[in-house]
């Protein structure tokens, strides 16, 4: 007699609203399912059929080129009909509320809505008002779960693991949903996460939560396996959070000299779009340790896995549920 195979449950949710609350098994399940999509993306014939006949709406309240096109491509490779809601042309500009928009779109019977919104919590609110799956493509400074998944996939493919790696997340943590999702995911998978940046850009609560926080790049990068840079938005200068681009670059911009403080085999990541000369030196961004372009490729693979999981997963009753 063989012992029954008690495999912990994988990802079976109707929505992906954040990394918060996911078990390590759910995360690993999504990463495993993404691996196959990487291969599909490298084939000449990329078109699949798991979402054939399904409708995907990309609802972006905030301008985004790469995330929106990545979700669009992911949906199309799975065979879905993808519609992009352009904010500029939508009734949101005419004063329609988020809920009105959700109800209107819901009446068109989509299967999944991919949402980006400038307000934290807006995507979860929308998910309560629609009958289909919802994927968070970034809500304010809260979460950007697919970014964290694609970062983890990229790391795992290069380092073979996530656990016990030292990951330095550097820069504007305060405004970054990418940082929050990454902190949650990486700590769930037992990586050692360090936050590096000026005190004006790191909420002190992270220190209270037990994360390593430092204002010194030298300290933060020492023995780091992964250096994850964040975008510094230029509006932050006016807010008097940092005094100038040149001072920021001097102390926090990742240049070859600072990168040398990390492990020799350290890899550099950035969620994009990059400000070369602000948070990252072009020599590093385009250098041999950079994974930045590969992150974009992994993005499509991860989003295919997520879209497939939320629409076809058991959380939605599967194919038969519809």
């Amino acid at each position, binding site marked *: 007699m063989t012992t029954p195979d008690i495999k912990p449950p994988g990802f079976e949710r109707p929505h992906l609203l954040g990394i918060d609350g996911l078990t390590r098994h759910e995360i690993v399940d999504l990463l495993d399912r993404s691996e196959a999509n990487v291969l599909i993306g490298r084939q000449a014939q990329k078109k699949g059929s798991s979402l054939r006949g399904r409708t995907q709406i990309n609802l972006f309240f905030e301008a985004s080129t790469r995330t929106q096109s990545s979700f669009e491509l992911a949906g199309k490779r799975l065979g879905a009909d993808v519609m992009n809601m352009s904010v500029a042309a939508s009734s949101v500009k005419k004063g329609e509320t988020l809920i009105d928009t959700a109800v209107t779109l819901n009446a068109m019977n989509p299967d999944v809505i991919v949402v980006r919104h400038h307000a934290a919590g807006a995507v979860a609110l929308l998910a309560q008002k629609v009958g289909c799956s919802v994927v968070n493509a970034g809500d304010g400074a809260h979460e950007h779960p697919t970014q964290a998944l694609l970062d983890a996939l990229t790391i795992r493919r290069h380092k073979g693991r996530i656990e016990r790696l030292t990951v330095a997340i550097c820069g504007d943590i305060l405004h970054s949903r990418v940082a929050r999702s990454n902190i949650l995911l990486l700590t769930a998978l037992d990586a050692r996460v360090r936050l590096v940046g*000026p*005190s*004006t850009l790191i909420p002190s609560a992270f220190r209270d939560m037990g994360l390593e926080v430092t204002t010194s790049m030298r300290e933060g990068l020492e023995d780091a396996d992964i250096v994850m840079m964040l975008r510094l938005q230029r509006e932050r200068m006016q807010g*008097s*959070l*940092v*005094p*100038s681009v*040149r001072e920021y670059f001097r102390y926090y911009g990742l240049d070859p000299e600072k990168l040398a403080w990390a492990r020799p085999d350290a890899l550099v990541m950035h969620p994009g779009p990059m400000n070369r000369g602000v948070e990252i030196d072009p020599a590093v961004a385009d250098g041999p340790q950079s994974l930045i372009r590969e992150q974009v490729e992994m993005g499509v693979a991860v989003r295919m896995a997520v879209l497939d999981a939320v629409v076809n997963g058991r959380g939605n009753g599967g194919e038969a549920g519809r």
Partner: protein
Amino acid sequence: MSAPDTLPLAPLVIDRVRVVDPSRGIDADGAVIVAGGRIVAAGPEALNQGRPDGARVIDGAGCVVIPGLVDMRAFVGEPGFDHRETFASASRAAAAGGITTLVTMPDTDPVIDDPALVDFVLRRARDTAVVRIHPMAALTKGQAGQEMTEIGLLKEAGAVGFSSGRSTVTNAQVLRRTLTYARDFDALVCHLPEDPDLRGSGVMNAGDTAVRLGLSGIPAEAESVVLARDLRLARLSGGRYHASAVSTAEAVDLIAWAKDLGIHATAAVPITNLTLNEIDVGAYRTFFKTQPPLRSEDDRRALVEALARGVIDVVVSNHDPQDVETKRQPFAEAADGAIGVETLLSAGLRLVHSGDVPLSRLVDAMSTRPAALLGLEGGTLRPGAPADLALVDLDEPWVLSEADILSRSKNTPYEGARFSGRVCATFVGGRAVFER
């Protein structure tokens, strides 16, 4: 740092002298030995190892040797207002007052808010000044109170602190973020607590005298409201906060409260607010118009007592040269400011002679404490420290006359004042920069 030239220098011995060194708790008769621009020994046992060969020997009988004064708040007109004061004239006046380190305010034209300008100040000072000059950089760009300056780069360029100068950052969020950011660089944030709206059109302390003179008053709350806010922001941010110039009894209570809570806060009081009061304004004498204003006698007494207790850390000259054009005006229209580097110590000695403040505490507040706050080497007679010191006759009587003033501007509130105690000689890096 601007060091005076360092040609080979004969060793120096000051013998039969009272040595006061608050950094080591020394107040005893002894000697000071200097060689190579640094202190070799200072105190009662200094001569145990013998005297260096070829030393210049000064008989210090009847005098006191103290570490050279470190004046944390001096306005110098260069660049932009050279007709009021240059580094050369300010430093000569400072040397005559026993000051060996002058910390200059960034309120020049242009405002010192860029690393290249810090570099300019240091070069000019190196070429023209006889005492050490350390600039403070502006706290906000253009002193406009909106955006913090490049604290990291400015500190690297040589700024020893960051000062709002004569202005106040009214936007609490800006000050909060600046304090937070400054903490990363262990930079000292020096802020003048004066609410410009509460000050309004005020030109002197609000009170009987102002009413009698028909002048609009500046309430004590113009200071305490801002200071109370600042101290809470210092607690929130964890940054190092220094009140550049306080003038009221209320401020003393607030600083004491903050220190009890362990907030990183310090405060300075101008020498004028310790030795003069609002009644001195007399018949609209504009040389007594200062920022902060001269306050009531009760305020003055509270400040003196707080200085003695150490609640007030530092005494500053608040040296602010103004010319005839800005001072020979109706009181309400005249500029604020009084010169003070030459009289800083002599005026301070009044508090020693009156028994209100021990000499060692006064020297601590004018030298040791400011050097420590600014992270400077001076302020001590410890062996190995730079030989920055002053030889002082504590009892010499003298009267200040305008003709003796070395400062390029003559706006002193002490003209004709009688003092007991005067600087005999001042040494910077072991070199005499002033001798009477």
